[in-house]
């Protein structure tokens, strides 16, 4: 497992190792640690928009002792064949899941890029900029990735957040659906139905998803 301090140390080391400025987006457990929702994570989830920058980042983590590994047993079989599946790098208990441009079928919407929770700059000779996505996007992407313990993380976020904006999440789901993500409605519906066993969520949000499908 990677603790918050480990995560910051790793990013600082990468910031010193890279030979050009790099920007990436953090979601999943990494983003949850930046928020303060939890203290450790199994993996660091990052998304890059530029392949060259992704490759530069991969070189830096390889130099830190991370080796590429297979995705089997981490993601459900339906996701393994996806052309936008991540590259995975492991060292002992620490793991990087590195996505390029899309998280499976889910793209970076303009709102995802604009409504950031935080921006962390790790300065060495060059700058590693980690942009932390907003909480609604973290929940949506956790619903999309469907890994072990993703649902527990979703539950942690919605339980701890007084101001979780469900309408904002549904709007994003619909944007993704209208921009080619054919799975997102099903993933969101499954997540909301499961969450309703633990917390109160208005039925109107599910209705919005159903009406989009028609």
């Amino acid at each position, binding site marked *: 497992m990677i603790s918050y301090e480990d995560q910051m140390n790793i990013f600082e080391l990468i910031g010193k190792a890279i030979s050009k400025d790099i920007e990436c987006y953090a979601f999943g457990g990494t983003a949850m640690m930046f928020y*303060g*929702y939890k203290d450790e994570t199994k993996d660091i989830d990052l998304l890059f928009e530029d392949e060259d920058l992704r490759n530069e980042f991969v070189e830096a983590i390889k130099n830190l002792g991370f080796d590429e590994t297979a995705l089997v047993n981490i993601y459900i079989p339906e996701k393994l064949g996806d052309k936008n599946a991540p590259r995975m790098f492991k060292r002992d208990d620490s793991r990087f899941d590195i996505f390029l441009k899309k998280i499976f079928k889910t793209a970076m919407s303009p709102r995802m890029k604009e409504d950031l*929770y935080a921006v962390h*700059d790790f300065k060495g000779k060059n700058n590693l900029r980690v942009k932390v996505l907003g909480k609604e996007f973290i929940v949506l992407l956790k619903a999309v990735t469907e890994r072990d313990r993703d649902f527990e993380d979703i539950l942690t976020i919605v*339980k*701890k957040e007084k101001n979780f904006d469900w309408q904002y999440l549904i709007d994003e789901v619909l944007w993704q659906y209208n921009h080619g993500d054919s799975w997102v409605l099903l993933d969101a519906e499954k997540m909301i139905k499961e969450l309703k066993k633990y917390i109160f969520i208005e039925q109107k949000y599910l209705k919005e998803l159903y009406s989009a499908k028609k």
Partner: protein
Amino acid sequence: MDKELLLKKLEGLHTLDTVAEAIHIKKQSALNLLSGLKKEGYVTVSGGRQQKRFYKITARKQRKRDKGMFDIINKYSPMKLAPWYDHQVHGHYGPEEALIDAIQTQSFRAILASLRLFNHITDWGKLHRLAKEKGCWQKVGALYDVSRLYFRVRKMPPYKYKAKKWQNLTQLKKLNFPHIAKKWHVYMPFNEKDMGELL
């Protein structure tokens, strides 16, 4: 009571009395509870000595912060910004970097507030290098000239420049301060009234 429920109930700014009252416990028990939550990272304390102590309680852990662009601008500028994201820099960060970051945001308010940073630039060479790297030296030059019209600013050493094609600071394509805009080929979104916010 379950810790999550307790934190949700107490979330916000409290004094010792309000904590004790909210969950119907004695003051000493409230103090012990707050001490435990502080150790776990859910509580930060301000005040003390002659001032009343305030306890900021959150359901999420409160991480130690490093300073970022908004912190530097709010420290030096009379025009304060409400950050729209939490910017933190892990490593050296000063007014030179903050000024360039403010320009990069293309935000009217961030750029306007950052004009006051010119008086705190100590390493002009660094500012010049950073601006060249980001391709915004024209903008820095134009902003410097505007700031000099309104308040005392340290003198910048002369750097060679060649005004290239016109650049926007924000989405507004306005030609305020025309002599400066034309000198640097930079559209200047601020007018004299806006500058009043910095005085």
